[in-house]
């Protein structure tokens, strides 16, 4: 469902390497968790997958194109002065959800996320955790097959983070492919079917999780980071 081949990209006339020969495939049902420090190029990789950035070399493809992609980042991409529902209806319209279905789908996804009672509130009035949930609703309204999550746990308190983890675990089913980036191994390790470490644009390790716990993966990550710095 998702293919990346030889991706290379650098900023500032080549001084900052964000992607260095990154290649991978993802099938339906797989969740790739990418761990890396800040500046490793994780966001750039997701932006290339989402079609926001054209890579300087290599190619990336998502089956179904833009309509099949749902994005969840640390910015909600919602309009503050519109209500949650109005936002959902707007985005549903952009993604080509037929008019007759939009209302029903919005109601449905709001219910799934436990936001029914907040539906008419303007987004600016919501707490960070609720905004994140609204952003997830927006990402799901068009029923995307691929979800790209860019450091989605940023700014969430423990409770909200646990909720998000539970939600993502539920989303993994139903044939979706997820790509999740984070700099904190504990956040994403248990959700993943495949794990990659991205350091300075490169996939330093890329392997199936194979039953490893987050402690084990964290240790491997620490070693990988030390190895690159040493």
């Amino acid at each position, binding site marked *: 469902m998702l293919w990346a081949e030889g991706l290379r990209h650098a900023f500032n006339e080549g001084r900052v390497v964000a992607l260095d020969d990154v290649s991978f495939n993802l099938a339906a049902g797989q969740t790739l968790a990418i761990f890396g420090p800040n500046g490793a190029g994780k966001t750039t990789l997701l932006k290339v997958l989402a079609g926001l950035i054209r890579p300087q070399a290599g190619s990336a493809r998502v089956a179904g194109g833009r309509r099949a992609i749902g994005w969840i980042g640390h910015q909600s*991409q919602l309009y503050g002065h519109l209500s949650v529902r109005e936002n959902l209806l707007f985005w549903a*319209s952009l993604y080509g959800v037929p008019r007759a279905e939009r209302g029903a789908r919005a109601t449905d996804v709001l219910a799934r996320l436990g936001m029914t009672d907040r539906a008419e509130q303007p987004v600016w009035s919501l707490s960070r955790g609720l905004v994140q949930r609204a952003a997830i609703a*927006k990402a799901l309204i068009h029923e995307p097959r691929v979800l790209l999550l860019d450091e989605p746990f940023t700014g969430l308190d423990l409770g909200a983070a646990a909720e998000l983890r539970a939600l993502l675990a539920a989303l993994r089913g139903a044939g979706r492919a997820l790509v999740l980036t984070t700099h904190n191994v504990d956040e994403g390790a248990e959700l993943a079917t495949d794990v990659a470490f991205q350091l300075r644009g490169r996939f330093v390790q890329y392997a199936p999780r194979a039953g490893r716990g987050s402690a084990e993966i964290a240790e491997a990550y620490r070693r990988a980071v030390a190895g690159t710095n040493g």
Partner: protein
Amino acid sequence: MGELLRQTWTIARKDLLLEFRSRTAIVSAVVFTALVLTVFNFGRDPTAVSALDLAPSILWVTFTFAAMLGLNRAFQLELENQAIEGLLISPLDRRSLYWGKLLANLAFVAVVEAVGLPLFVLFFNVPVGHVLLPLLAVMALATLGFVAVGTLFSAMVVRTRFAELMLPVLLLPFLLLPLTYAVQATARLLADRPLSEVAGWLRLLAAYDIVFLAVASWLFPYTVDE
């Protein structure tokens, strides 16, 4: 084509809804217009120059500034929470984004002009009733010219530092043309010249609009995409 129109309307409607909700920009623009007209009144010597001579210039300079206020907010709205990224990740056709923003900007400036024109008539005692229709035609065509190029440029400057300052610097040379044509047409209208004299200026305005709408809508995707 139907899809493009639908998306254009979705964008325009969203912008207008947002504007209606917060109302800050439109109120500021209307007040600004009233203030500028007031400043022009105190800034001239009524015994030296008649209102009728200066009127066209005053009117159009005021409208130009008002248009720029409106243009600045168009893409600023998308920066909040990085909605612009969401728009670009979605299957939204970039041309629909341009046309949608253009429509919303036109509506914004139209409201400001709808308040500005009566105020102008009031403050400067310039009767326009007898030439109202042709005058509205001039206003519509000139405003379209302002907004066609302005929407394109505002997309670019929103990502630069000092966006509010950059936009006038880049845009004014382009606005000089429709501004000049509009002033010439308005002057002739207010002086009760026959319509045939005004027609040429209207045609120039229309030509400017067609050319720059085409160029700006062609170029717009390059300002948001790689």
